[in-house]
């Protein structure tokens, strides 16, 4: 395994970049593993990495139905922030934020994490009150977030339209300066490369088709490449979590919806930060390739067709153009959808299930990319010890029975 550095870059330049090694092996599945992780998205791969790195559990396989990051990891708009309202969420998402801040060095792989700031707009008195409340709650939790006037918001993002004539004029904003974006594929590839180096088997084109449960305990998985025994199983299948958990006879409080995004033709740097508006439902940033990256909403019905309706995109573009008339002549290049698993309280479920040795990490819905490192880190702890890490302890499946919900519906009112 080559360490990436200025020297390896120079060395490989001399040989015309023809000798870079593969990032990870493609091993045949073994008969069994201590831990089998279902789903090779960012969360599954991060889980495998931290299992090996932090807990020295290396007899681990990640089983991915398609290719790494071909699910929501590679379809999302990469907004990273940690300014969630409740203490439990602030702890979880800021744990991720702190890991993001050192991730490229940790993985020796550039995940292009860019803390360009996330601006969340307020368009009416209630928005302003909520923004103020969230800013105070965040600061009590040690999470940076500040309230800006409309003029201060425009100074931070000069493209913003402050006209009083638009349907929902901008009245202020909350700004998390540590928030920003990252390169989604790189996150999957970086974790995969790191996990592989520590001995984890990453097995693509391997679909889990059944969970073998004996006497209330999960003992292995049926796959398109044969049966694989497992000491513990971690299900990290995002939009397909209900389907996989159903194989173990577990019903989850999840609904899977299509969520769309689109990008424009690439242009020179024209947009400095991330802007989100919960009220008019729009969010936008510019990728390092130069495309405007625009997130739309979910469709109203559950679906596994990765499509979504055109009217959803139109609605979002109307909102974007009110806020940023400067982009009215831009041409859109591509649009797509991913399937997101949404919980009733818009918070994830990370932990045990009624089936022993079968653990879940799901329900990240429209906003789990930002949590990738933290999610993997605490889920690895959960799988290694059979008990949750203190940070994910509140995020149980049980909370829907005992009523201790973590209602972040406001934080996640806009899909992001």
């Amino acid at each position, binding site marked *: 395994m080559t360490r990436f550095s200025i020297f390896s870059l120079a060395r490989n330049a001399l040989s015309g970049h023809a000798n870079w090694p593969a990032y990870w092996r493609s091993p045949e599945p073994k008969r069994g593993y201590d831990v089998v992780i279902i789903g090779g998205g960012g969360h599954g791969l991060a889980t495998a990495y931290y299992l090996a790195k932090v807990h020295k559990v290396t007899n681990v396989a990640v089983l991915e139905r398609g290719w790494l990051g071909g699910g929501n990891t590679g379809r999302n708009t990469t907004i990273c922030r940690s300014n969630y309202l409740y203490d439990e969420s602030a702890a979880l998402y800021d744990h991720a934020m702190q890991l993001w801040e050192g991730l490229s060095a940790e993985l020796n792989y550039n995940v292009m994490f860019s803390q360009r700031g996330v601006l969340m707009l307020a368009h009416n008195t209630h928005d302003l009150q909520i923004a103020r409340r969230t800013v105070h709650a965040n600061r009590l939790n040690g999470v940076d977030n500040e309230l800006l006037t409309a003029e201060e918001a425009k100074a931070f993002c000069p493209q913003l339209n402050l006209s009083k004539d638009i349907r929902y004029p901008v009245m202020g904003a909350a700004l998390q300066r540590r928030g920003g974006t990252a390169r989604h594929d790189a996150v999957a590839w970086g974790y995969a490369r790191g996990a592989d180096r520590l001995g984890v088997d990453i097995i693509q084109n391997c679909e889990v088709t059944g969970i073998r449960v004996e006497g209330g305990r999960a003992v292995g998985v049926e796959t398109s490449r044969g049966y694989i025994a497992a000491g513990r199983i971690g299900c990290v299948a995002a939009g397909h979590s209900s389907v996989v958990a159903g194989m173990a006879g577990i019903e989850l*409080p999840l609904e899977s919806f299509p969520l769309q995004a689109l990008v424009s033709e690439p242009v020179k740097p024209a947009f400095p930060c991330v802007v989100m508006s919960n009220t008019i439902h729009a969010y936008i940033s510019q990728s390092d390739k130069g495309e405007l990256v625009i997130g739309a909403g979910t469709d109203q019905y*559950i679906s596994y067709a990765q499509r979504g*309706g055109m009217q959803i995109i139109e609605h979002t573009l109307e909102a974007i153009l009110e806020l940023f008339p400067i982009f009215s002549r831009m041409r859109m290049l591509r649009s797509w959808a991913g399937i997101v698993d949404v919980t*009733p309280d818009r918070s994830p479920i990370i932990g045990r299930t009624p089936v022993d040795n079968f653990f879940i990490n799901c329900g990240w819905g429209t906003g789990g990319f930002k949590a990738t490192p933290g999610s993997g880190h605490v889920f690895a702890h959960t799988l290694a010890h059979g008990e949750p890490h203190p940070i994910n302890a509140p995020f149980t499946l049980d909370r*829907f029975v005992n009523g201790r919900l973590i209602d972040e519906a406001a934080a996640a009112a806009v899909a992001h």
Partner: protein
Amino acid sequence: MLLITCPHCGPRAETEFRNGGEAGIVRPRDPAALSDGAWTGYVFTRQNPKGRFHERWCHAQGCGRWFTAVRDTVTDRFLSFHPAGEQPDEAGR
């Protein structure tokens, strides 16, 4: 956008409709007698099948009436539409 056939008004654009999620959820007759787990099932647990799904729609911008549709969630193709009170033949999944 889906093309949805209201049993009363015929085929209309999806934007005229409001989706109401899983069909056939019955409010428990005696909620006080329910265990917490059973109450969770009623309030939060929903079928989320990859395949056939019985769901409710309301023709909000039309006749305003609720009805049931059977749709395949992989293709989004509708298999049948039923006015309220009429039971689709096969079970949900």
